[in-house]
């Protein structure tokens, strides 16, 4: 915030008579701040609203989902594991807007709590994965040589697996739990995307400012942290935002097979799962609503991610 404020202040003062630039002028400033003076993180959203309608729609969906996840304890009409055997298989009623399942649990409640699990796993895995991707990618790219060769063969081996088979193998042995699936998806995301980060690190390494830093006596640690890392960050943001929908979808497919988040917690994938297929013939809404929720979430994250990539990726700028 600070730099843009002072810049705007400076511009304004040039236009006005010097003595007029007192407290009063400073107070009226924010209204007159031009588009270029906006901080970049705000500017991205403004440009999204004006130029990327689909991205804005995606952002709105994500916001609703976030709100549902954070406020679940207050807005959900029932408890997520609260059963009521007298009210099984209700299509929709004033008390249960989206109906109930085979144990009389309220579907809307479970969808709201499902958003919490999806986001928890999604953001958790992306956070772990981004750190891992950055660590592997930057170190492997920066050091190069034999170390790089060795690490990259490991990444090759990991990528030779169909992702779902590998994740299923790991999850069936670790056992389903929220923590396990978050860590496993995070590691998978990290290893896969370390390639991208490594590519950028290789490019940045060749710049002369890195060479200058080395010549000035900066150690390897300092060079990577202060010179390579900041240049890799935009790539990581892009990779992370576009990866969120994939991670959420993967969690859903693992939960669908019963190897993701264990039963007491409601997840969208778990609600659709094979185990409940028999009940769905009797109550199709049990399949419809979770599928709709999942599609909407994936759509929202995809659109938001696409728009953010267009706006943030320096390679796509001016296009």
């Amino acid at each position, binding site marked *: 915030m600070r730099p843009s404020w002072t810049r705007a202040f400076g511009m304004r003062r040039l236009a006005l008579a010097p003595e007029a630039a007192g407290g009063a002028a400073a107070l009226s400033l924010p209204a007159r701040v031009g588009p270029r003076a906006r901080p970049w993180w705000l500017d991205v959203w403004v440009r999204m609203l004006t130029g990327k309608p689909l991205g804005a729609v995606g952002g709105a969906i994500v916001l609703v989902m976030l709100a549902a996840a954070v406020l679940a304890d207050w807005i959900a009409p029932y408890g997520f594991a609260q059963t009521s055997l007298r009210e099984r298989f209700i299509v929709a009623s004033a008390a249960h807007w989206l109906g109930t399942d085979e144990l009389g649990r309220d579907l809307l409640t479970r969808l709201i709590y499902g958003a919490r699990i999806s986001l928890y796993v999604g953001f958790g895995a992306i956070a772990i994965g981004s750190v891992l991707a950055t660590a592997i990618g930057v170190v492997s790219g920066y050091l190069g040589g034999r170390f790089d060769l060795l690490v990259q*063969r490991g990444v090759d081996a990991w990528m030779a697996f169909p992702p*779902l088979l590998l994740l299923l193998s790991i999850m069936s042995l670790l056992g389903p739990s929220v923590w396990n699936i978050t860590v496993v998806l995070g590691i998978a995301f990290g290893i896969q995307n370390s390639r991208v980060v490594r590519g950028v690190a290789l490019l940045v390494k060749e710049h002369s400012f890195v060479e200058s830093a080395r010549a000035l006596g900066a150690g390897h640690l300092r060079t990577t942290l202060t010179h390579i890392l900041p240049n890799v960050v935009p790539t990581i943001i892009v990779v992370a935002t576009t990866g969120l929908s994939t991670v959420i979808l993967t969690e859903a*497919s693992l939960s669908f*097979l019963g190897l993701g988040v264990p039963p007491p917690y409601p997840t969208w994938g778990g609600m659709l799962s094979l185990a409940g297929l028999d009940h769905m013939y009797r109550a199709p809404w049990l399949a419809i609503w979770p599928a709709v929720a999942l*599609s909407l979430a994936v759509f929202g994250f995809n659109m938001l991610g696409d728009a953010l990539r267009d706006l943030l990726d320096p390679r796509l700028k001016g296009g």
Partner: protein
Amino acid sequence: MKRYVLRRVLLAVPTLFLVSVMVFALMRFMPGDVATRMVEGHAYAPTLAALRHDLGLDRPVHTQYLDWIGGIVLRGDFGHSYWTRQPILDEFGRRFPVTLELALLTILVSVVLGVVIGIVSAARQDSAADYLGRVLAILALSVPYFGLAVLVVVLPSIYFKWTPVWTYVAFTVDPLENLKIMLVPALVFGVTRAGPVMRIMRSALLDVLRQDYIRTAWSKGLAERPIILRHALKNAMIPVISLIGLQMPLYIGGSVIIESIFRLPGVGLFFFEALTRLDYPVVQSVNLIIAAMVVGLNLLIDLSYAFLDPRIRY
């Protein structure tokens, strides 16, 4: 060309070695014991120790690994299932055609849909058809294939009294009946995969259509159809093909889910059943075979670029 292929094959060796170590370590160093599970379920052996000895689980880990990998490399023996004692390769061979057919049909559906819509979208950029195509592609991207599959299994059976055919018939026994069974799963999976194909096709074709040789083709009076289909399409197909290659692991992974919903006796179901029963040798060998296939396929795809674009040589 020959040297390139040779180098790629040699590079695949350390990759596959690492794959085998990874999948083996995964199976051995994590909690969960197959012997306990087997003794609990049925009396496969009088005692736990006897069963362990019988399965070779009491030997040191590195001997077990060498035994497994040695069997594969030296004798082409991929081991036996713990539970059924059947050779894994035989079972894999029986089930692979199902998964391959599903994958090929899925690719066919997604490529036909994606390429046709992509061509129309690119050739009529910013028209109503283009917007419709792009919206469809985004929808296809958003709907999870297992969600769609569940809806396709459940909804028609309630409202139209129609259900997918549940008893599998091999293609060699009755091709028509077989296609009737495979059609629905392939359509469900293919439609959801058509989204990315369409988007890549559209952007690649738009890119190619702006190149000089296309302008030359226009100016020598060629009609639109041959320009797009004969001149532009071939070049624009390269990213589409590499996308399909990149997605191949996804098709195989997805077959686990599709096969368990539609009850197709393919490799995916074989793998998943082995996994839930902690059948280590099956999980290891199937993972390794499929990883080898993925590596081989990537090589084939790289070689196909040279056919599509004569400027590319290896």
